[in-house]
């Protein structure tokens, strides 16, 4: 169970540490800017923060937290809704803010936490105490300590807060920090399970004794031949492909895209506007048990005249009828519908039309992944469950049913008659993120069966938080079992002995995944759940912008702002739809740019749909080529020929999966003094493809550190790059100083704060991702670009805005 605890002195007591910091700041007169901060900072409070993961049931965790943290006399303990009575009147930080002398006031939060690789003594001591209260030790338990500083000051700028954080609050080599807005402080969303989990990684090395505590004592085994194991890991194994998940079968995603100008025109003339759309949506709604529907409409605005014959069929009327129809469908089918207006032309020779699309997401209907598709993958214990005869097989089946009902089992893999290595290699779908096998205590069993057929039995993946319960269930039923490892998210297969990694392989090698197989690369995470009703997500990403539309209601969006929806509350996975309408100038580079744009935002491209109006052959070839080259499915291609319309139009949309919608980004630079990097990367070369995988959160872990990512078209050229960067600066009236010394082919410009750079750069180096530091954003609204000879070109962002 993941818990976040914040402890602060009650409002009626002063905070001596905070007062001391304020008085110190008053003494600081290094320069004018810093000296003035004490005037702008009117009030300050400090709270201790702990991120805790305890492998125990909720009631025991509540008890432990109560015993460890609650001090009725002096402290308030903020836990979200875990211990509501431990805090003040509202149970939020609002109670503490009430104490500030200037009310209502403007509050900010600065949070620091000890970096995971740093020694965290406080966390270690607390973990020891919590485990003492729980009366048991678990290697899964983890605590990270930190501090939260709430400051009040109407004139405090972000620069001030960063300065405070950097020089007065956090020790950057050991602690990371972030700034929280006032709204976030007043809400309790940061106590949510997922938010806490972000800061607590899985322990890498687990003491073997923890895994062995439930096993019968084993005789000392002979030495394991690790050379042999290493060989076995590397040996490709012919696996039964049908046993694995076929990505296409994991869920039921059906899409339809349609130009509707002809139909709509006819129907409009017979005064049943919107009927087509309604029918289309109803059809999807009834057929596919939809979770999500997106409708994109293209309609020239009031500057164009409707070419219909009947009086009153004006575009604005059509539009309102259309919207009303969508609203009705949304209400009656309980389905989120997004309307999109993305095209407006001044050319009167062009036709009027709607472009409608539906994306229906249903339950997984078949395939091995069907029952597991709705589970957020977390660490799972690997158990070998043995059933030697018919009676014990029945017992195991019964226990399995019970555990499945209790949602304790993530997966079960039949293993009889196969060697352990063979079973592991076949369980690719279940173990696709990596796993650790700990051989201590089971050396004999491991040695015997690693390459020899196992007796009757099966491998279970037991959810980490339900492990103890499952063990109790198994013990009660007298079923023999071995706990021999854990799944992990490291992307590595490791065999551990006495805490040392004795054999290691990457999942690519172990599962014999063909390198850069487009289909495998682009499809990773199942998205959809069995929830019957979806709700709008409350987006908590601090790097989010208003560009990203997440509310499943009517919204106007454009090519610059794709629709991102979270189909279920059970999972943070989402679906992103990015649409575009192109004319004759469409070509392969434009398509690749759109791919890159999806990737920059954080999506893993799943499929594309196109609809041609007087389409060109070269377009279709471009799509066929993309399908073959990148493995992106062309779900649907519709072609309408209308010689009366003397132009060529292509409506297209890309459906992407977003592994975690909290990690999506927008293009605009967010803060001054951010570092800007160039990441070369396209879809054509394996090396540069790594960038795409990293940006789409398929690999790596520090993507959240990025403040923005903007895709650059390979044909842009230098001036194109400058134009793109200018647009990204306009929104927040920021400036930048860049050194562009060479030609920039396809790739990405990304920005991040100084604070986050070390971790991200290290990850890039580790993964072999090329990067280049090109400059920084500035608070003065001028884009200054220098070339090889240090000549500067200056563009005023203020003028453009």
């Amino acid at each position, binding site marked *: 169970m993941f818990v976040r605890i914040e402890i602060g002195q009650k409002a009626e007591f002063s905070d001596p540490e905070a007062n001391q910091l304020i008085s110190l700041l008053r003494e600081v007169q290094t320069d004018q800017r810093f000296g003035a901060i004490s005037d702008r900072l009117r009030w300050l409070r400090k709270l201790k923060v702990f991120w805790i993961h305890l492998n125990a049931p909720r009631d025991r965790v509540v008890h432990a937290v109560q015993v460890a*943290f609650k001090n009725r006399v002096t402290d308030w303990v903020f836990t979200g809704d875990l211990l509501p009575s431990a805090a003040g009147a509202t149970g939020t930080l609002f109670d503490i803010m009430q104490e500030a002398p200037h009310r209502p006031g403007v509050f900010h939060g600065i949070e620091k936490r000890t970096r995971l690789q740093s020694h965290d003594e406080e966390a270690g001591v607390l973990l020891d105490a919590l485990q003492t209260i729980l009366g048991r030790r678990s290697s899964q338990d983890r605590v990270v300590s930190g501090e939260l500083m709430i400051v009040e000051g109407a004139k405090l700028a972000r620069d001030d807060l960063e300065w405070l954080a950097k020089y007065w609050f956090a020790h950057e080599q050991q602690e990371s920090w972030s700034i929280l807005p006032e709204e976030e402080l007043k809400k309790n969303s940061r106590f949510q399970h997922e938010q806490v989990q972000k800061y607590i990684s899985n322990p890498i090395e687990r003491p073997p004794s923890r895994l062995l505590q439930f096993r019968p004592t084993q005789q000392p085994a002979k030495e394991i031949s690790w050379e042999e194991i290493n060989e076995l890991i590397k040996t490709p194994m012919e696996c039964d492909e049908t046993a694995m998940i076929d990505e296409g079968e994991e869920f039921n995603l059906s899409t339809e895209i349609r130009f509707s100008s002809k139909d709509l025109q006819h129907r409009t003339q017979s005064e049943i506007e919107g009927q087509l759309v309604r029918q289309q949506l109803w059809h999807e709604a009834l057929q596919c048990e939809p979770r999500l529907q997106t409708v994109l409409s293209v309609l020239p605005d009031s500057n164009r005249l409707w070419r219909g014959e009947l009086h009153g069929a004006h575009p604005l009327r059509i539009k309102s009828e259309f919207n009303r129809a969508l609203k009705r469908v949304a209400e009656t089918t309980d389905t989120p519908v997004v309307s999109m207006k993305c095209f407006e032309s001044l050319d009167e020779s062009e036709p009027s039309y709607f472009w409608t699309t539906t994306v229906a997401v249903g339950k997984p209907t078949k395939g091995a992944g069907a029952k597991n598709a709705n589970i957020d993958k977390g660490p799972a214990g690997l158990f070998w469950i043995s059933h030697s005869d018919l009676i014990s097989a029945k017992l195991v089946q019964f226990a399995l049913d019970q555990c499945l009902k209790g949602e304790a089992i993530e997966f079960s893999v039949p293993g009889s008659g196969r060697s352990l290595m063979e079973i592991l290699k076949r369980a690719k779908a279940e173990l696709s993120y990596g796993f650790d096998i700990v051989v201590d205590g089971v050396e004999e069993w491991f040695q015997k069966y690693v390459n020899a057929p196992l007796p009757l039995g099966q491998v279970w993946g037991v959810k980490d938080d339900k492990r103890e319960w499952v063990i109790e269930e198994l013990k009660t039923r007298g079923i023999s079992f071995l706990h021999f490892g854990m799944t992990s998210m490291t992307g590595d297969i490791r065999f551990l002995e006495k805490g040392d990694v004795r054999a290691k392989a990457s999942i690519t090698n172990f599962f014999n995944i063909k390198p850069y197989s487009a289909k495998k690369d682009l499809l990773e995470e199942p998205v959809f759940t069995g929830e019957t009703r979806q709700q709008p997500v409350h987006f908590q990403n601090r790097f989010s912008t208003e560009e990203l539309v997440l509310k499943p209601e009517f919204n106007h969006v454009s090519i610059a702002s794709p629709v991102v929806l979270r189909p279920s509350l059970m999972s943070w996975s989402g679906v992103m739809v990015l649409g575009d309408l192109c004319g004759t100038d469409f070509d392969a580079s434009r398509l690749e740019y759109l791919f890159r744009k999806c990737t920059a935002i954080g999506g893993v491209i799943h499929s594309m749909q196109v609809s041609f109006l007087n389409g060109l052959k070269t377009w279709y070839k471009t799509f066929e080529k993309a399908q073959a080259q990148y493995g992106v499915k062309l779900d649907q291609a519709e072609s309408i020929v209308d010689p009366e319309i003397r132009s060529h139009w292509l409506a297209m949309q890309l459906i992407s999966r977003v592994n975690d919608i909290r990690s999506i980004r927008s293009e605009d630079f967010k803060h001054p003094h951010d570092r800007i990097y160039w990441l070369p990367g396209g879809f054509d070369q394996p090396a540069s493809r790594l960038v795409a995988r990293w940006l789409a959160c398929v690999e790596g872990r520090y993507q959240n550190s990025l403040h923005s990512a903007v895709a650059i078209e390979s044909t842009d050229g230098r001036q194109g790059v400058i134009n793109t960067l200018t647009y990204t600066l306009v929104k927040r009236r920021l400036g930048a100083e860049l050194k562009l010394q060479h030609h920039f082919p396809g790739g990405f410009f990304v920005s991040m704060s100084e604070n986050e750079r070390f971790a991200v750069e290290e990850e890039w180096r580790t993964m072999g991702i090329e990067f280049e530091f090109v400059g920084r954003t500035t608070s003065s609204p001028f884009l200054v670009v220098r070339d090889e000879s240090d000549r500067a070109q200056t563009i005023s962002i203020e003028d453009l805005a």
Partner: protein
Amino acid sequence: MSQGKFRALILSSPGARGLHAFEYALNTVGFDSEVLDIDETMALKLDQDQLCLKYKLVVLPGGNTYSSVLGGGRILSIKIQQGLGWNFNKFAERGGLVLGVGNGLLTLTHLKIFGDDYSFRTNEKAQYREEWVKVTPFGNRCLWLRGLGTLELPVNQLEDQFVIDPFAFVEAKGRLERLGLSCLKREGSNQIYGLCDQTGRIFGLLPHPEFFLSWTHMEDWFTNPTRAAAPGQGLQIFENAARIVANG
């Protein structure tokens, strides 16, 4: 003076100070003292009965125990209560004595020995206070302070501000005065520097008597070198303990 037959336990924990000073003081007054680490004690599974049978006195030393995580003495109190399952009130009822010094007093407070409504918090300057203070015993509840006058002892403490729950202030304050639990105050002020339980056998104080066992421990002892061989005032507290135990 006892003849070395009574045993005293000095409960050590990471960051504890003055263990040898306690050992010396207790041995000087006639106890047979033993230093045991809290984790070691937990490993030995020394339960309440064994504690009562084996020891007559338990000392909770001060110092920055467990790095003062969650406040001074907090973690140690959790370990004593949850890990060892000891109840000092019962120990005192069976004739035992408990002394908590510095953070040891805070540990006793977290164990709610003196009641639910009391706590200590960081002083207003948020600074470790290192000074010699004069403290005066109040009332006759505390057996440890019987017959003692004003003492001058070193104090070294961050959380030295005694607070009473504001929601039960009148009642809690009244209880404190009525029962005479606030048995040690700073001379010339109302600042509480020591507390005892209702039996008077469990005593906690912020100053460190173990650091004033000999007159030479005092910073300006050389101004009066003739007293160099004289015992320090802190030793009187331990002598009282030995007397109580000897008298049953």
